[in-house]
């Protein structure tokens, strides 16, 4: 008696890497994967039928061994930082220390209900807020936001509340054209109108262009520094001055903080609000799409607007302070993504000031090494030293090969491709951020692969166009996925 595994039901398809059926195709009625505590009380009177579901939720039925094998196989279809070079620009895919994975799972952290007063955890979060404030030169930090974009929204709501408190409602936010897409999306939730600011020929903010659009209707500018071209905004203090002079505030996207730790602090030259990405700069894992954490730092004048509650220290005791009349309110439940905060705290405690500074130095060194070793073949978007990431353009590639094909071909050489087609201001961008976590031998192997691919682009562009070949699936039909969305498995 053989069973159908749907599309995986072909001879040999259960081999090492070819096809893993879905849970639903694997399901067999009567299989059990659970072990429940025994029933030690009597059956109560039933609930009214009107409140009950008509049929059980159609979750699949598998034994534990099948579930474990299923997800183990799926994990093998993935590529992570621990698999090899993962130079995804703007994402800071640095090593995720293993000790941090252990300590966040201590029972005294992981099994604690949020309604109790846990002095150890409140102290940890309080101290993490102090560390982050020191690193970025801010006066106060909240760890409530769950991700970078959540932090951005928190920051922009603080700006909105600040202007409202001064009876100075402003309707616009200036956002440079190099910004992450989350910036305008976050501003929009605050009902701000977005004013795009074109960067100059060097890929930087042009203070004169900024002065021309900055007026009393502008609430803030959102700056990413180093920007998404991997360049330090040299005029950032002048830009801040222009904005401040006309009553606006400076929002600082800290996504690229990994380039500058110990070298420069945004709070020292004009940042009023800033968010951190703990899952970038502070080594917490990306989890295949989160959870992250996006703490927000503010200067003194914005502290009353921080989300509620804040953690206060009174003597040797830590407590949650809800009495915050000017607060923007809650951004979420409880105190934040504590499991992530624990990892970031452990990272900072292990690295110390010198370790963090060294990380930034090596991140910048790695990026510049790649820039120099590739720039004879691949045209850099800005021909000058970069910070933690370098951006190339597809302009001038042999046979007009698109950057997408280069990226897909890199998988065949065993690398995760860099970010492509971002930032939007560069035609066919490839944005490479190697981080400090990769030794020069890995970088050299990547350089060799990039140079080989360039040669392949000259000799046989079709080879690239059909890449990858050595992956569990080949290039996908993503248009079909969007035209005829199939977002759940069929009922078996």
């Amino acid at each position, binding site marked *: 008696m053989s069973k159908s595994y749907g599309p995986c039901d072909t001879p040999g398809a259960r081999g090492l890497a070819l096809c893993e059926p879905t849970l639903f195709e694997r399901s067999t009625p009567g299989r059990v994967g659970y072990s429940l505590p025994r029933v030690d009380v009597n059956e109560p009177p039933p609930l009214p039928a009107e409140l009950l*579901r008509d049929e059980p939720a159609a979750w699949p039925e*598998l034994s534990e061994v099948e579930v474990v094998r299923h997800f183990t196989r799926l994990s093998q279809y993935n590529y*992570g930082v621990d698999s090899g070079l993962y130079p995804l620009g703007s994402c800071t*895919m640095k090593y995720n220390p293993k000790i941090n994975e252990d300590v966040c799972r201590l029972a005294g952290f992981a099994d*604690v209900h949020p309604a109790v007063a846990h002095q150890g955890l409140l102290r940890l979060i309080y101290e993490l807020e102090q560390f982050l404030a020191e690193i970025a030169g801010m006066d106060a930090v909240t760890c409530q936001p769950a991700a970078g974009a959540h932090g951005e929204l928190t920051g922009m709501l603080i700006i909105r509340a600040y202007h409202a408190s001064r009876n100075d409602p402003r309707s616009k936010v200036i956002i440079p054209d190099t910004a992450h897409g989350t910036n305008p999306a976050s501003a929009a939730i605050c009902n701000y109108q977005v004013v795009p600011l074109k960067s100059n020929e060097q890929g930087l903010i042009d203070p004169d262009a900024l002065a021309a659009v900055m007026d009393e209707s502008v609430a803030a500018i959102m700056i990413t520094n180093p920007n998404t071209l991997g360049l330090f905004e040299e005029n950032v203090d002048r830009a801040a001055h222009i904005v401040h002079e006309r009553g606006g505030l400076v929002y600082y996207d800290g996504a690229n903080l990994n380039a500058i730790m110990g070298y420069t602090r945004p709070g020292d030259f004009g940042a009023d609000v800033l968010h951190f990405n703990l899952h970038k700069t502070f080594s917490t894992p990306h989890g295949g*799409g989160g959870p992250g954490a996006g703490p927000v730092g503010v200067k003194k004048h914005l502290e009353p607007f921080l989300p509620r509650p804040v953690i206060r220290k009174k003597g040797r005791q830590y407590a949650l302070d809800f009495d915050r009349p000017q607060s923007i309110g809650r951004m979420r439940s409880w*105190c934040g993504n504590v499991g992530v905060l624990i990892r970031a705290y452990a990272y900072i405690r292990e690295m110390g000031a010198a370790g963090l500074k060294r990380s930034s130095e090596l991140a910048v060194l790695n990026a510049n090494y790649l820039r120099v070793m590739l720039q004879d073949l691949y045209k850099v978007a800005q021909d000058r030293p970069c910070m933690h990431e370098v951006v190339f353009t597809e302009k001038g590639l042999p046979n007009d090969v698109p950057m997408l094909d280069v990226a897909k071909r890199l998988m065949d050489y065993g690398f995760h491709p860099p970010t492509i087609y971002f930032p939007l201001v560069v035609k066919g961008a490839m944005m490479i951020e190697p981080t400090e976590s990769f030794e020069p031998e890995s970088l050299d192997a990547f350089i060799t692969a990039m140079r080989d691919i360039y040669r392949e682009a000259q000799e046989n562009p079709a080879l690239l166009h059909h890449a990858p070949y050595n992956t569990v699936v*080949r290039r996908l039909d993503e248009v079909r996925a969007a035209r005829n969305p199939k977002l759940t498995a069929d009922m078996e």
Partner: protein
Amino acid sequence: MRYLPHTDGDIVRMLTAIGISSIDELFTTIPEPLRMQGDLNLPEPMDEAYLRRHMSDLADQAPAGSCFAGGGAYRHYIPAAIDHIVRRNEFYTAYTPYQPEISQGTLQAIFEFQTMITRLLALDVANASMYDGASATAEAVLMAMRTTKLKRVLLSAALHPQYQETIATYAKWAGAEFVTVPVNAEGRTDFAALKKALNNQTAAVVVQSPNYLGVIEDTRVLGRFLARHKAKFVHVFTEPLAFGKLVPPGACGADIACGEGQSLGIPLSFGGPGLGILATRLVDVRQMPGRLVGETVDAEGKRAFCLTLSTREQHIRREKATSNICTNHGLMALSAAVYMALMGREGLFQLAKLNRAKTEYMKSKLAEVAELPLTGPTFNEFVWKPRQPAEEVLQALAKAKFIGGVALNGAAPGLENAILTCVTELCSRKEIDRYVEVVRAL
């Protein structure tokens, strides 16, 4: 430093290749006046052994006791297999699956997660996760306002107070007008008041079931009534395991179901990271926030999975996106997927039954020594009023090694001195009896 692989020799070789003599030269693009003077003021670095001990010392400060607290975060048994899967480096050290050819593991797992969530909630489509129940609910309200182009939002007073506050934060500048619908003597949203508050300008009716007071709302009746109105029925939940027994949102006419998925195999972790869930009907899929995984084929016609319908999202649509969400809670969705696969349809049903049976047992015992003011049916949480001040009772319970519940400081009229207590499969009959004895002895 063991996380930083470069030797001095490596650095010299790389600097030579670049054509400079010191790392500092790479930072000359930072103008001198913007440079930091001196070093960051952070504590001295710790070695691994010392760090482990320090972290254990902090963890050891956790209050000890059997947990009878719920109120949006629940202590359930987490099968050991889950963490073994979640700790596979290929899963937790990967980024959002932008490159599907080398991310099929994450993508298929999320596709399976979406499927199992829709089957639990009886809706057509679920996204790949949100941050938590509160922010998912706030996004659901914004989505309802977008689809109806209306601004009036009715909130049940028995909606989790943190969710109410988060909705207010998110929807403030979209011009939402909130109306709170009171709770009746059963502990349910007052249906008559809701009918009165509803008009043709209403974008959403937001009701949680089981609600913050533990009471199961009459969602079928509510759904039948709301079906005749333009307003979106947003069905919130904090305890998804309830739907192992109870009528799911989709089967009672909910347009959007949203809430917290922490009960699905995710540690309490002092409140985060949890799992935001948002599901809806296919007609509204293009207004949904968050990522979606879809099935397609590769160049050879083989089944494959990828992120899809991304024209809704911030990286394409920028200020016109349906949400600003980017990083979500993918690893928590994976935990939930493993959990749901292990439980299966029968395990979920038995678990839901066990939670309710133990709760009913505790209610019957506690009724001997305290007042149970609400008459509505419950799942695994309920409200009771001690004869002494609630804070004192909780302290006495803490002394006897119980985390006794959550004090409700007037969450609804008549509940000024009340406690919300939660009983899951992890609370044994012996513990329940001892808890009640502590209260009796006061």
